[in-house]
């Protein structure tokens, strides 16, 4: 496995605060100070306006010869709060861009051989338009995303997937899609370009993480409304405080009131909200999934039903030998030995599994001298070995029965039941013959992936229903479904069946996720709430889905659900934390604000903060610092562990709710102790 571009050579993800990203983010923090950028985030806009007001008050005091140090300190702290929020967003954007750019870098400066009227011309890759035909030969890079219209090639996709083994891409199959920046290793193909420069999935994804074109997702909008509402409520509470303190005979300082307002409104979540959304996309990208919208990632957390392909997701891709069933009169060891000999030189996974099974059962033999391996072909439908006058074959039962008859052997009546039994249990029967003597049957079965049963049980506890999709007959499907512990299965599944099943589940109010690659999967991918298309799949499938998996890994669906949930949990946790923080901030600022009017209120200073000035400054410093301190959490996301809704709520409430109440009391007190000597 070579290193994927988004992973550093050591296999580690780049650190959140790597110098290059940070310097980009710092630049972005200042660039985002424009009112237009700030107005996108109502909570931070209030801080922004507050900063302008305190700046004005500072200057006014300076001009009229009144003390201005405190006003200046608050102004700077508020500015810092805004900058920290900008920095969080900038950092998330920088990370996303860096990841996407490294994926894209591979295709830059690629020359393309464009076919025009049967003639080739060489143009820069960036000049290609959708619909152009380009020729790519062994050793060349594919210049743009597209679909093979002619030929077959092995392609090295390690630049985008990190997987070094080449993959086969062929025109007219479900594996006709190719990605710009990947390299053709053999043969020659003609590719129809499907996306022009700057329009590929990757380009779209880069745009999604960039501030300007980033659309807020539905849940982000709802949460923004909640936060704006809270901001309005606290604005009201603080604005009315001024007349209240006028009544009390000691008008509050406007600067302190602004400081109080900024502390009360949910700046922590308000400042980190854009970063959390972008980070969700980043995490998808880290998992080598390109989401076409932020909404797609968010919806993944809500999925109720997972349609999973049997092969590759639930079972190991290839069937493995699981049993030797000899015919009467044939010792088991003899069958095993013959099967072993026929498979020693067999490079297929099935062949290797037969060797492994035989050895596991204590049967072993060296490769005979002069052995000649006979490869499996579509015509012969069998493989085997010839040596020293012996001829062993293994293959499909009907073919081998015919072979036995050709060789003049007897076909015992017991063979048919043996073959049927294996088929009924969901396996593939391989009949073995030595010269003209039929020996028995080797059962090849689907092997359910280790640990998958536990994984499905986990999903069930989270409330997710799993449905296995397979082309197998219902009997076989049921046997595997039972073994894997899925909640349901769809046997002999046609694309129409998949579509119908998705619709049926959606009628019941459920959200469905599926993965697919073929053109005939496209309607189902489009219908599913989360449609994850394999990058190896056809262009139609990739267009229909709302995410593309660069690794074409069938288990990726499970990962995507986790990313979606993590995104929502992070928002919820930081919202809870932000709101819970208000309790301590009140106890810091209210006594400071009112103690002139009513000295008795000093008893509310439960933290024993040094002075009204130090109390207000400490609260504002805490409020500002908590944003950068929580950036790692916002970008990495609150770790998502599969557990029931009730259990997760209890856990997160304890950490972020109770923690949100307690932490600021301690932190504000500490900050107060630190800054008191500075204030003199």
């Amino acid at each position, binding site marked *: 496995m070579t290193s994927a571009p988004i992973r550093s050579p050591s296999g580690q993800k780049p650190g959140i605060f790597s110098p290059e990203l940070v310097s980009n983010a710092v630049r972005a923090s200042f660039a985002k100070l424009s009112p237009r950028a700030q107005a996108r985030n109502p909570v931070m806009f209030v801080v922004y306006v507050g900063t302008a007001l305190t700046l004005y008050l500072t200057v006014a005091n300076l001009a009229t010869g009144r003390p201005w140090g405190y006003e200046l300190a608050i102004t700077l702290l508020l500015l810092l709060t805004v900058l920290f929020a900008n920095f969080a967003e900038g950092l998330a954007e920088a990370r996303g861009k860096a990841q996407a750019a490294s994926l894209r870098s591979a295709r830059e400066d690629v020359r393309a051989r464009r076919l025009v009227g049967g003639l080739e011309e060489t143009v820069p890759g960036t000049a290609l338009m959708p619909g152009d035909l380009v020729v790519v030969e062994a050793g060349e890079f594919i210049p743009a995303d597209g679909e093979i219209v002619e030929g077959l090639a092995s392609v090295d996709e390690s630049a985008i997937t990190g997987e070094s083994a080449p993959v086969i891409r062929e025109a007219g199959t479900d594996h006709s899609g190719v990605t710009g920046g990947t390299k053709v290793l053999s043969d020659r193909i003609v590719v129809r370009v499907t996306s022009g420069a700057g329009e590929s999935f990757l380009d779209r994804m880069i745009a999604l993480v960039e501030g300007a074109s980033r659309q807020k997702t*539905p*849940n982000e*909008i*709802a*949460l923004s*409304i*909640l936060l704006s*509402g*809270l901001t*309005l*409520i606290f604005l*009201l*509470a*603080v*604005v*009315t*405080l*001024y*007349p*209240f303190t*006028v*009544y*009390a005979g000691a008008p509050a300082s406007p600067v302190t009131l602004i400081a109080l307002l900024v502390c009360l409104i949910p700046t922590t979540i308000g400042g980190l909200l854009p970063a959390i959304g972008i980070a969700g996309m980043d995490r998808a990208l880290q998992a080598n999934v390109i989401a076409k919208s932020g909404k797609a990632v*968010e919806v993944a*957390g809500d999925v*109720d039903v997972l349609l999973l392909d049997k092969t590759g997701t639930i079972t190991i891709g290839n069937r493995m030998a699981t049993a030797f069933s000899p015919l009467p009169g044939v010792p088991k060891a003899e069958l095993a030995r013959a099967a072993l000999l026929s498979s020693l030189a067999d490079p297929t996974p099935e062949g290797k599994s037969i060797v492994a099974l035989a050895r596991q059962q204590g049967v072993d033999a060296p490769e005979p001298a002069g052995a000649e391996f006979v490869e499996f072909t579509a015509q012969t439908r069998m493989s085997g070995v010839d040596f020293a006058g012996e001829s062993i074959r293994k293959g499909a039962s009907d073919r081998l029965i015919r072979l036995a008859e050709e060789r003049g052997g007897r076909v015992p009546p017991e063979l048919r039941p043996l073959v049927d039994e294996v088929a009924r249990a969901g396996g593939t029967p391989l009949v073995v013959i030595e010269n003209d003597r039929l020996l028995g049957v080797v059962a090849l079965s689907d092997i359910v992936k280790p640990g998958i049963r536990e994984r499905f049980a986990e999903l*069930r*506890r989270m*409330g*997710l*229903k799993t449905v296995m999709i397979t082309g197998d007959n219902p009997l076989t499907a049921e046997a595997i479904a039972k073994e894997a512990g899925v909640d349901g299965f769809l046997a002999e599944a046609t694309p129409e069946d998949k579509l119908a099943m998705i619709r049926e589940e959606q009628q019941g*109010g*459920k959200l469905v996720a599926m993965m697919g690659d073929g053109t005939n999967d496209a309607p189902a991918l489009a219908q599913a709430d989360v449609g994850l298309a394999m990058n190896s799949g056809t262009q139609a499938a990739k267009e229909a889905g709302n995410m593309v998996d660069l690794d074409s890994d069938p288990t990726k669906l499970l990962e995507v659900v986790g990313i979606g*949930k993590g995104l*929502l*949990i992070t*928002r*919820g*946790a930081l*919202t*809870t934390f932000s*709101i*819970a923080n208000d309790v301590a901030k*009140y106890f810091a600022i*209210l006594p400071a604000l*009112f103690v002139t*009017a*009513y000295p*008795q*209120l000093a*008893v*509310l200073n439960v933290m024993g903060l040094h002075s009204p000035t130090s109390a207000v400054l400490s609260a504002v410093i805490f409020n500002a610092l908590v944003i950068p301190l929580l950036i790692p959490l916002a970008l990495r996301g609150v770790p998502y562990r599969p557990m029931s*809704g*009730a259990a*997760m*709520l*209890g856990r*997160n*409430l304890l950490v*972020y709710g109770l923690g949100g109440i307690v932490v600021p009391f301690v932190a504000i007190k500490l900050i107060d102790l630190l800054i008191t000597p500075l204030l003199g």
Partner: protein
Amino acid sequence: MAWLQFLVLLAVMAALVVPVGNWLYSVFASEPHTAPERLTYRLLGMNPQEGMDWKRYGLVLVVSNLFLLLVAYLLLRLQGLLPWNPAGLSAQAPDLAWNTVVSFLTNTNWQAYSGEQSLSYFSQMAVITTFMFTSAATGLAAAAAFMRGLVGRSGTSLGNFWVDVTRIIYRVLLPLSFLLALVFVWQGMPQTLSPYATATTLEGATQRIALGPVASLETIKHLGTNGGGFFSMNAAHPFENPTPLTNALHILSMLLLPAALTYTFGRLLGNLKQGWVIFGGMLVLFLGFLTTVYSFEQAGNPILSRLGADQTITATQAGGNMEGKEVRFGIAQTALFATTTTAATTGSVDSMHDSYTGMGGFVPMTQMMLNNVFGGDGVGFINFVQYLVLGVFIAGLMVGRTPEFLGKKVEAREVKLVMLAVLAHPLSILGFTALAVVLPDALKSLNNPGPHGFSEILYAYTSGTANNGSAFAGLGANTPFYNLTIGLAMLVGRYLTLLPMLAVAGLLAAKRRVPVSSGTLPTDTVLFGGLTVFVILIVGALTFLPALTLGPVADHLQMLKGVVLQ
């Protein structure tokens, strides 16, 4: 002894939740109309079969209320020309009449007048007592529609406003009031149309004793969480509250319908646990507030202790702070009454809240600011659900799903409407208070300076906005400014919370139900009930904390330090 009283009364209250909740369920859910109901629909030209969506329901509710407002205003202004006016009282001034009508229309029952000196028997019955029925029925009808929307089994229809109001009056309020009135008359409450009695006192002076149809008003006053007294002294008046039994019945009837609605909801939803969780959340808040007010009142005033007054509780004396309290009821019954009347936002009083210790007065104010500790008939439930939805939204995210409430996704539009409802409350309370404390004319109405004076104004607008109606007293509220602004506060508090929440129910009703799975956030658990209480205290109460600090908290701390303001 005090705790035993609390325990017995609250146990009786809880025991009534199930039967009354079932009764309300049958009223909300049953199909057939009774003969008198059919007659009413025919006479008034209503179509009882019409299914109303939230817009239609809300519109009918508002228009019918507006109609009542106009008629009642005319009746009060024409009082001098109308019958049953033995004391020959003249009409209320326009600003006072506006305030009075809005007050009773919105189930507030703020009284800027004193009944025996301002309203004829006719006005008491035709306007005050009638509105006590209609406003309670409107609140309960809104709750019925709201619940139907949340349960969401009838498509976009939330029911029929006319049917709901008629049934609630005919099947719930009238029979209950009639029964209770008989008990009250037996306990010595007047129920008469004869003129005021004249007595000769021991000193030989002549005293006019105000009478009237008191018992009939008292029953619906509490059942309907109205609170407006027949007399100025409200439930502290011996004719309104003659015995400890009537005091207990008053308390029980205030909580009867708001508490039972939680069970009704559980039945409509087909999930009784959900109803009990809401009931539990309300009860926990109630107990917390009751404990606070009782402890502070029983602790008394340290200034008096320093002067040598004995404030300990003994067999022969109540101890504590007895200023402004009825000796017949003592501190425990008074604390329970005050907690109940401001929890259920009734607004009747059997003591002077103005005379409480600072922190004693903190409790009634805070409960009204929350407005959902049982709350007024129907609206208390709706207000509690506001915070439930907020809790669902925040907590729902924390389980990694788009928040769902009762199987419906909570999205931007619902959040917007809930926030509007949540915002209306502080906007009115803090906004009007801020206005009043800087207007010199408004400040002239104050009897006390300093934090206590501030509390008096804050209390007035809180009471108005929460549609409670109790007064802190000490504030001369019958001025054009207060009549107008408190009237506005009452309207904001009533309709700007009720209508957005009705819209939320309507929107949720139209949504597709998401099947419950183990990954769903369960809202019928103790944990979630606790979370809702947490959200209520953080979002609901923190908004008002600065104002409360400058009012009752500062007041109390000054008292502890022995500060006496001149």
